[in-house]
């Protein structure tokens, strides 16, 4: 499945901005599930000091500055991505109980290794062992509180119903996703970026970011590693309707680490397991790690902002 994504952000300022510096995570990352063939920016006014690097989580980051006075800024990112949907059945069939997954993550995996490996040649099984250990080590950071997700007793209470004893982790997460979908009302007017998770839980309202954060918090409360994914989802027009260009938006969901299997995505907003319509931009502990576009502007007075996203299926 191949897509072209056009993501445009337009800022209007009431007063001139003399200098602005920006950081974008708008270029889809490559990993075994997807490949980004091509990605470029179109920015007006022309920026200076472009700089690109991979962040701690392996996401593409772009820094740019506008150093001359402007009252309007347009940032467009155009990317072409091919998805390689994996056979989810196999992953979903993983029957490891959540308690076992939890204790696998809890153990300090390295200690056996660290004793033997100094300067020694490694055989293949040691190598494999080490790869898995590195993966678990990486997963462990998604057990901890992060800037926007703090584990609380309330989150644990809400999640408890899904964590039946000896239930396979995959089923637990599935159940949790369905419950969030069922219990919570999608309401863009209710939350902003700053709305705390406790409010989302209390009022049972929110948007995709909130639902992803909520699920992540619930899972971490039981020491299950969960991370936040920012990206896009293809929307199909209703039968008989024309496809509207630019009517899409960016999206967010979450991913769970299943030992021996790897990371498995879930979309609580749509109650689906992403397969071939979810394009990943970036992942991190929560939204704060992967904000698609943020900047610091000097001057500018009031600003307004509009975003349009177009996800076009090419083949």
């Amino acid at each position, binding site marked *: 499945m191949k897509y072209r994504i056009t993501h445009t952000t337009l*800022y209007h300022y009431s007063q001139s901005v*003399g*200098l*602005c*510096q*920006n*950081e974008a995570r708008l270029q889809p990352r490559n990993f075994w599930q997807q490949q980004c063939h091509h990605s470029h920016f179109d920015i007006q006014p022309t920026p*200076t*000091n472009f*700089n690109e690097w991979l*962040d*701690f*989580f392996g996401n593409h980051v772009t*820094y740019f*500055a506008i*150093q001359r006075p402007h009252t309007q800024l347009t940032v467009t990112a155009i990317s072409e991505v091919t998805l390689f949907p994996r056979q989810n059945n196999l992953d979903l069939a993983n029957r490891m109980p959540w308690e076992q997954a939890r204790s696998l993550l809890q153990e*300090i*995996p*390295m*200690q056996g*290794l*660290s004793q033997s*490996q100094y300067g020694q040649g490694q055989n293949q099984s040691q190598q494999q062992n080490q790869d898995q*250990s*590195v993966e678990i*080590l990486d997963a*462990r*950071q998604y*057990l*901890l*509180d992060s800037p926007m997700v703090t*584990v609380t007793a309330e989150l644990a209470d809400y999640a408890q119903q899904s964590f039946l004893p000896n239930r396979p982790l995959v089923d637990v997460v599935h159940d949790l996703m369905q419950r969030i979908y069922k219990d919570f009302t*999608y309401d*863009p007017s209710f*939350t*902003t*970026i700053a709305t705390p998770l406790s409010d989302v839980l209390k009022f049972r309202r929110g*948007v*995709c*970011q*909130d639902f992803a954060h909520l699920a992540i918090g619930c899972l971490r409360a039981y020491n299950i590693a969960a991370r936040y994914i920012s990206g896009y*989802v293809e929307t199909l027009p209703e039968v008989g309707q024309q496809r509207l260009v630019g009517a899409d*938006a*960016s*999206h*967010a969901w979450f991913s769970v680490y299943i030992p021996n299997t790897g990371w498995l995505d879930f979309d609580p*907003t*749509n109650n689906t397991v992403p397969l071939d319509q979810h394009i990943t931009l970036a992942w991190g502990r929560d939204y704060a790690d992967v904000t698609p*576009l*943020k*900047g*610091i*502007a*000097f*001057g*500018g007075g009031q*600003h307004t*902002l509009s*975003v349009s*996203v177009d996800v076009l299926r090419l083949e």
Partner: protein
Amino acid sequence: MRNTNSPANNIGVQYYATQLGIYDEMYATENKVLPYWERFMDALDSMGSETLEARRKEAQRLLRENGVTYNVYGDAQNLTRPWRLDPIPLLISSEEWLTIEIGLKQRAELLNLILKDIYGKQNLLKKGLLPADLIFAHDGFLRPCMELLKNQRHQLTLYSANLARGPKGRMWVLDDRTQAPSGSGYALENRTVMTRVLPDIFRETQVRRLAGFFKALRSGLAEIAHHNKEDPRIVILTPGPLNETYFEHAYLAAYLGFTLVQGDDLTVRDGRVWLKSLSGLQAVDVILRRVDDSFCDPLELRSNSQLGVAGLLDAVRRGNVAIANPLGSSVLENSGLLAFLPRLARYFLNEELKLPSVATWWCGQKRERDFVLQNLDNLVIKPINRNQDNHAVFGGLLSSKDKDQLRSQILAKPHFFIGQEQVSFSTLPAFVDHHIEARNAVLRTFTVASGGDYVVMSGGLTRIARQKDNFIVSNQAGGISKDTWVLAAEPDKPVSIWTQPKRNQLIEPVIEPLTSRAADNLFWVGRHIERVKTISRLLRSVLRKLRETLEFKDSVDNECLQVLLCALTQVTGTYPGFVKCDARLLESPQNELLSLAKDGQRKGSLTANIQAFVQSAFSIRDFWSQDTWRSVDTIQRRWQQRVLHNEITVEQLQANLDDLITGIVAFTGLTSESMTREAAWLMLDSGRRLERALTLIALLRSALASRHEDALQSQVLEAVLDSTDSLTIYQRRYRSYIQLPLVLELLLLDESHPRSLAYQLHQLSIHISALPRTKGNRHLSEEEQLILKAYTDLRLCNVLELTQVNENDGIYINLDQLLSNTTTLLWRLADVIAEAYFSHSQTSQLIMPITPEDEL
């Protein structure tokens, strides 16, 4: 109980010995005073209690006059707390110091290696030598800083440790300070003061000097520069005057010759960091930061920070600026690390830790957690993140309910907590209430990477608890500091921190760029001091007139008083005041006058202006010479002591106004005599000239724009001349009855009279044309146009036209018009100068979607 047998002038050395706990610095483990302490204490003893108390007071006076303060958070009333210094230093023998020095160097090397690993390959985490959770859960681990450390041997430039001596006499490290260690400036100031108050004892006790450390600091900072290694521009980044150790930032900036800046004095353009100065952008090579790392870049780190520089991290990433300490180094302040240091010392250095840390158990591990939970009563429980919300808790002091709560907190997030052994520190003598007493002490040490090695300050900042038997030693809790004397085997040669030029080598003078913030503050220092002076003089004239009115009960006196009272309200802008007020207030104006003088909450009052003056001056503390700062301090302190903290009458106020005016004259005299005629002076004097012009106009408009009866007019004119310090000149020059045209000639048009409007405008136009923006430009800038217009309009006036009166309303219409137009021009001028030169005033904002973009 004090020993009542001791003679009054005895400092109590004998008695001291009977009161000691486990380990005292003076006695060590022996039952006998250590020889070097004995010599020192003998000298003190022969000085006697009274002399020592006098020396202690002298030290406090010097510290106060030098403006050595420590700010206390959350205490707006007494924000700046005077720095307290005990006259008895901590003495450390040279042999012992050597052990400490070696231990500190080893620890600095070790922490440096850990830092490089955490932000580089993370082998420690991969090999399980450090638990990943311990690092990942710590606020100081800044993911955006990964891979940012450049290939240089010592990334950790500055390192401080808090040391205390345990019961068996061994030095322990309580904690490590790695991101922006404070205290070295206080240590230096303590030393400066000690050499003045105990000069003889200091000379006789061969004490190692501190300058070597600062010399190493200067060269260590130059070494980390990526550009201009020969002569890098180094700035000290401070959070600003409200920060607890702001004094030290300003002090070190002045001592080391670096520019003191706040976040918005800097900007990132073209991937480099620039200093916004009056003469344009100046490239910055090295930042010595005193801002916590997560606050340093609102773009990539904490987005709500107003203390940082947007884009700073990217400039670091490009290798265009070096920061000491590097961003992210607070990860080493993780108290849980202490538990792993012995293992890491063996791993990295193949050595045992030479300076042990206090025994620490990190609860992220099961065995350690169980131990901590079982031994809560005997341990100190601390969070791994050190911040204001998280405090150390003494388990034994908790109620059983609180203990249960702590237990469940630890179980919920075990990796957040450590348990630490409770240490009892050694004591040392302190001079309290005229005799010596034992106090628990903590020594902060300072280390800097320089010339491929770590250099340790031979001394440090010793702090003692305020109360006896108190283990909590902190400045926020009101601790007292001590100098630290490391004894030398032989006399230590003085070192200058400045490089010695070769013979006959001429050195290019460095013209320090003036930051726009400093320019702004200088301008306002000038405006406020002038305003204080004008108000004091006018108030003094009013009080004089008030006394005459009460004494002679003359109706003309009374009318004149009313004119002056109105003028006072108008000059100070403290409406409604005496303008259109009811008759009772005019009859007994005393309370309103006292409020105008004393009420600091009232905008425009004398006290409010004094406070604003001191605040602006303090914000640029590094600009003032010691004498100048003392004059600022005197103005403030006397006013506080004599006026604010006293119930005074208007009569007593008058004497204090004389005193205040003398203080102001000292300040203006010192600045005029000691400031070079560069941008800083131009800003300060422009502020003064502008304010003098504006207040003079306000006075003349209020008092003289309408016609008065002859008798009244003459009194009003006399009072105006008096309050503008021009009466004597008038009498000498005109030798005549005081009349309006001549007064206007003198106060408005006479360019040779330093109090006249023409003089102010002339000076302003000279200053403005000398400012960097206008220099060498063929077109007149807006500020030049404004001052030219104001000055020319004034020069084209003549007093006869100005004194033509409109018969309908009795107003000198031309005079009023001129004064009003000039005011408008000058206000606009102030705005234009602010826009053109104080560019830091532009605020930044975070732009990102505030409502989530989403779809269903």
